[in-house]
């Protein structure tokens, strides 16, 4: 079974630039999550989708971050404009259904903002 795919694996940008990350969850998984993991910390949930609807985006900085999952499969996370403090690993995870099902994580995208 293929795992969660993410691209790119690494990205370096300057502050105020825009960046987008892509995630392809495990086939058949209805729930998709985006996490931000700052170095030395545990992952922090940014947004959770159930199919193509947003379940929880309470910790998403909506002035600069946006995410979509238009067809209920792939998802993109965008940052515009980026700040220095956005440097982190952005992890995508998916689970079969709702919270409580095991979440499977992708390898992450390491973002460096200069």
């Amino acid at each position: 079974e293929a795992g969660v795919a993410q691209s790119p694996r690494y990205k370096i940008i300057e502050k105020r630039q825009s960046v987008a990350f892509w995630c392809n969850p495990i086939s058949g998984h209805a729930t998709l999550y985006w996490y931000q993991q700052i170095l030395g910390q545990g992952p922090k949930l940014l947004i959770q989708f159930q199919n193509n609807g947003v379940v929880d985006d309470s910790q998403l900085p909506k002035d600069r971050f946006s995410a979509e999952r238009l067809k209920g499969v792939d998802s993109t996370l965008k940052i515009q404009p980026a700040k220095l403090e956005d440097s982190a690993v952005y992890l995508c995870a998916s689970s079969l259904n709702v919270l409580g099902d095991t979440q499977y994580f992708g390898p992450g995208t390491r973002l460096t903002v200069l």
Partner: protein
Amino acid sequence: GESVGLHLPTLSVQEGDNSIINCAYSNSASDYFIWYKQESGKGPQFIIDIRSNMDKRQGQRVTVLLNKTVKHLSLQIAATQPGDSAVYFCAEIYNDMRFGAGTRLTVKP
């Protein structure tokens, strides 16, 4: 606010010894807990989980203990191997999943 925490940020053990990684949680309403292992450059990998109606669960070489009285979770790894070197996170689930900061386990040959 309530959060998940860990007692030790680092743990170093000798190969073959048993490892115990501890975690304290604050939300008594949390009903599901997961331990994840994260190797360098990879996403967290599910190890073992436990629901609040249990106090112990065993997997292959791993055991999770839950003490709801003191809100404490531990992960025991038997016969620790070099491949077990990683950062270990506990996560608690109530309305969402919240991770602790992690414990780095280093296995010395």
